[in-house]
């Protein structure tokens, strides 16, 4: 009796997460039956690791969308951070901790620049970040002069692929993601900054009337998104051991990050943010893309398949949400 009520409550409040876990698990089980190699430990690890970089970017994107903004510049920020840290590490053996600080710094400064344009000049965020997308992409070319990163110090590789201690079979990037997710959840749910950005996403005029410094919040949120994208660039560098001028932009990670945030239950009109949903959405996308490979779907179909999957999940989530609102009114 009590447990049944508990289950109902969890389903009502965490329905999106439960559904995403369920669909992802079902996909893994079905694929495992069709192709036993799919559930091989190495493949599971591959899918998990494959979702970390996207998750980090998408967490930042979730903050921006929850504030009723959008950030397209995350892709070149990822690439720029990977390129800058990678080239310095390759040629001068940049210590890892400096690379850390450097990538975060790049992201905060360039992200805050986005926020400044959005709030001080009142340019719509999609226009601002479309512009800075090209500008930051340009920085990658200017900095790299056409060279690329092909070898990185061992410490970097360990961060991207290794394990913290032998008895814990979880790769370091996954642990990093879990820590970032916890920090982000605290930030969104339990700080005045987090609640203020949701207020701005709900109704910026009303938020202003309530005494919230809307402009400052906007700048901080874009800085946060830039920081996470840029940090994702460092993780990408460590994981793949390489960086090219098209890292990030080539995979359209800006669009993927928006898509998984929506799949995870954050509405495109803002006002709410579901961070766990975003991470589960990234994992789901990683599993779907790997499944397409295992199902021998020709590669030319991947992009179309990915898009269909995104539309289907977002649509299913919307219907559920509308039904729940109708119920609450009645």
């Amino acid at each position, binding site marked *: 009796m009590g447990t049944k009520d508990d289950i109902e409550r969890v389903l009502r409040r965490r329905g999106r997460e439960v559904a995403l876990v369920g669909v992802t698990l079902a996909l893994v089980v079905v694929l495992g039956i069709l192709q036993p190699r799919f559930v091989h430990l190495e493949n599971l690890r591959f899918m998990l690791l494959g979702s970390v970089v996207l998750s980090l970017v998408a967490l930042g994107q979730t903050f921006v969308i929850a504030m009723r903004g959008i950030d397209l510049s995350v892709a070149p920020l990822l690439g720029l951070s990977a390129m800058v840290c990678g080239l310095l590490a390759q040629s001068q053996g940049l210590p890892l901790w400096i690379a850390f600080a450097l990538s975060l710094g790049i992201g905060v400064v360039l992200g805050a620049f986005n926020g400044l344009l959005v709030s001080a000049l009142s340019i719509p965020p999609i226009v601002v970040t479309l512009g800075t997308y090209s500008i930051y992409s340009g920085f990658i070319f200017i900095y790299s002069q056409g060279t690329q990163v092909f070898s990185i110090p061992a410490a970097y590789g360990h961060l991207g692929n290794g394990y913290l201690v032998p008895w814990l079979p979880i790769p370091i990037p996954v642990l990093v993601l879990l820590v970032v997710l916890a920090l982000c959840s605290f930030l969104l749910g*339990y*700080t005045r900054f*987090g609640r*203020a950005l*949701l207020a701005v*996403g709900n109704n910026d005029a009303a*938020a202003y009337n*309530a005494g919230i410094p809307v402009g400052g919040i906007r700048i901080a949120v874009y800085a946060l998104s830039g920081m996470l994208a840029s940090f994702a660039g460092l993780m990408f560098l460590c994981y793949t051991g390489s960086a090219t001028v098209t890292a990030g932009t080539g995979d359209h990670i800006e669009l993927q990050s928006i898509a998984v945030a929506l799949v995870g239950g954050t509405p495109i009109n803002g006002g709410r943010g579901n961070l766990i949903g975003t991470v589960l959405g990234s994992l789901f996308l990683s599993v779907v893309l790997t499944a397409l490979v295992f199902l021998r779907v020709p590669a030319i179909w991947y992009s179309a398949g990915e898009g269909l999957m995104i539309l289907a999940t977002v649509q299913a989530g919307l219907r559920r949400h509308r039904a729940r609102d109708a119920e609450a*009114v009645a």
Partner: protein
Amino acid sequence: MSFAQWAASPGPGVGGHEGRIYRACNIGKRFGPVTVLRDVDATLRAGRVLTIMGENGAGKSTLFKILAGQLRPTSGHIELDGQELSLGAPSAAHAHGIYLVPQEPMLMPELSVAEMMFVGHMPTSGRFLKRVDWRAIRSRARAVLDALELDIGIDRPAKTLSIAQLQLVECAKALLHECRVILFDEPTSPLTAHEVETLFGIMRRLAGDGYTLSFISHRTEEVMEISDDIVVLRDGRMVGAAERGAFDRASLLSLMVGRELRTVSRRTKSHVTQELALSVKGLTHEPSFRDVDFSLRRGEILGLAGLIGAGRTEIAETIFGLRQVDRGTVKLGNTDITGVPSHDLIRRGVAYVPEDRGRHGAVLPMTITENITSSRMERVRQTAGLMSRGHETEIGAKAVRDFRIRCAGLDQTLLELSGGNQQKVVFAKWISTEPRLVILDEPTRGVDVGAKEEIYELIDRMAASGTAVVVISSESEELVRLCDRVLCIYEGRIVAELAGEEITPQSVTASYVGGSQARDAEFEKAGA
């Protein structure tokens, strides 16, 4: 407030100021060339309800916005307990314990009721990591709602609340932030009679507890019921201020409408013909209006009077094919045009000039000429499918002369014109199509007094040329000045029809104020 100051501030609630006196002294406010308020004085006292009364456009809301820090006065000042205040933002008013409950509260749709009450002022706990204290938020929200005896779940998403509930939550917010001065901007117009009673009950209790309250209304009955003091505004001037006992309903009404001023300027000549232009039967669009019947002859000017939200605009939009018809028929002459889309109606000689000129009346960033010719591009001479710029300019120049549009040149955009001249361009555009039926929604909204008269003349000229005209207006004087007949709409129904000499400012206003009394009586009957 800077971002850093905001992040460090402990939260709201100056609190502890018992019995505040809040005064507006010689307040004047101008928007560009338009004067909205002139030398208005009002004193709000602790434990009392001050009502600001007036017709639509009398300046009531502007006064409230100034008191709440949303607008700065052009002249005069405000004082709290004898201290002059300068409020730069609504948050500054909150910090002084002054709270405005808006007519239609701004919604934060995705937030819970509890969170919405604390937006911008989240209490935090913890020494090192300041975290939002959800337990305090929930218990304090619950406590305030309980104190007001409001049965609203604190975890409900805000988008599921009714307007009445949102207003009451706003009122609870004022208490939560320990605001002792609470301003209610015309709270009763979107409410049902029962909801009004709930609100008044709460206002009385707050006044009993020594809160300083003020309230906007144009319903005399309500005003007599709830007020201790009354200030009456007309055209931005104070025309009456005293304790309630000094007024009765009739005197309030005549002050609000302005007896002396309004007996003049009736139309001298009517152009009504025998030819039927429009007939509407049983027209219904739930929930806005139902069973609307009327007819209109060529050359006739018909007014639709009523409160904002009575359903007048919705009737016009439905006739013009912008809204779906639930029931009923609309005939243009002898042709049934029920449900015909608007672009088709324009071709058949129907024109609709909406209240919000920017929405679909005028294209503000386009030039005067382009606006005038946009309704009938095919009238511009063409060569091989290309419009003749010269001929287009000629048409524009003629309109500017005919309609006395004041502008620096034909290629000025409408953005650069005053409200009155923008409206003249819109009229020129439609009149040039020689329409059979014109519907004008608030034709002089945002137009200064001088230009108003010119617009009235234009409307009269349209009627003289045989056009049937429907005028929606919230200014009773305007309807008296223009109309052959006036229909009074109350909550989606026609409650009265006035013709010829019967149309006076008093009769028009009384008819829709009377509508509210009829409804209240109905409610009392149902309750008893």
